[in-house]
């Protein structure tokens, strides 16, 4: 004989729970913690002597208050070749006597104005870092994206190898100068 067991209908409970679940899935925003990472220099010590660098070992990029670009003293409108210029400068190794002696001495100086927009600042910094990541990735024989992934998590031994191999002998020397006070 079939006996009906008294039960609260719980078939719809799953639906309700799913609805809540979907709500949380949709509204959850995963925080964006990605960006361009830099290390600021130590505070200026007034007793420290000023170090002079040879002009040929410096790659100068300047941006004025109207976001116009000056690269090595020349105005530049189209930034598409800037990355390759920086790469050539880093890896010059004395081939061109007017460019850097070796990657260790090469410094990219980046100077902005107080009126430069953050958007432009990030765009140029992105290009400079792109040049360095490309050089590093080439040296360790991986793609740029793979290299950055390895650099983000060096706790893994494989990643650490890629990272160390890429950076060997090529420091990322980006000097971000204090912005000028008056727009020019």
């Amino acid at each position: 004989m079939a006996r009906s067991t008294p039960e609260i209908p719980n078939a719809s409970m799953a639906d309700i729970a799913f609805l809540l679940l979907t709500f949380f899935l949709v509204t959850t925003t995963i925080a964006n913690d990605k960006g361009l990472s830099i290390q600021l220099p130590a505070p200026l010590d007034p007793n420290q002597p000023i170090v002079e660098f040879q002009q040929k070992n410096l790659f100068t990029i300047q941006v004025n208050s109207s976001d116009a670009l000056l690269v090595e003293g020349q105005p530049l409108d189209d930034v598409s070749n800037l990355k390759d210029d920086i790469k050539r400068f880093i890896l010059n190794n004395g081939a061109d006597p007017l460019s850097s002696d070796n990657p260790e001495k090469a410094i990219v100086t980046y100077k902005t104005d107080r009126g430069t927009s953050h958007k432009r600042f990030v765009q140029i910094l992105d290009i400079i870092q792109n040049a360095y990541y490309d050089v590093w990735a080439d040296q360790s024989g991986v793609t740029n994206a793979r290299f950055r992934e390895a650099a983000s998590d060096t706790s893994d031994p494989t990643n650490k190898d890629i990272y160390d191999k890429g950076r060997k002998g090529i420091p990322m020397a980006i000097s971000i100068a204090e912005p000028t006070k008056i727009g020019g």
Partner: protein
Amino acid sequence: MSKFKKKATVKQDIPTSSMPDVVFMLLFFFMVTTELRKTNIDVMQRIPEGTQLRKLQRKSLVTDLYIGEPKKTEQFGKEPKIQAEDTFIEVSGIILWVTRQKDLLPENERDQMTVALKVDSEAKRGIIADVETELRKANARKVLYTVSEKKLDLN
């Protein structure tokens, strides 16, 4: 014959009574892991785009600083402001703020604190440079400019 008949009476439904439990478990998992935004951001946040992004290793060591034009311009003016947690702070207050943030971290990790600068595209370098100078003084020298990934790589 009777043997087979007996077998046919066995209940064949998949038990669904435990399904809500499973789903609730998932629900609780998401509710617990979801980090609700702690602060209301009162400055404009049109994050610039870039390609060479790096992920941060340890999220617990990251503290955010928002810079941009206030959303309520009639109340706070149009000049870009710095927001930390729920309040606007002045450039001169940054060292104190960094010290407070460092106190929240375990002692051996304090020097690894990273400041994520979430800066609006239209903010000017001047204020950001002032902030950087203060961060250097406060010895919080790891900085991340928060940038969103560019979808199309034009370079």
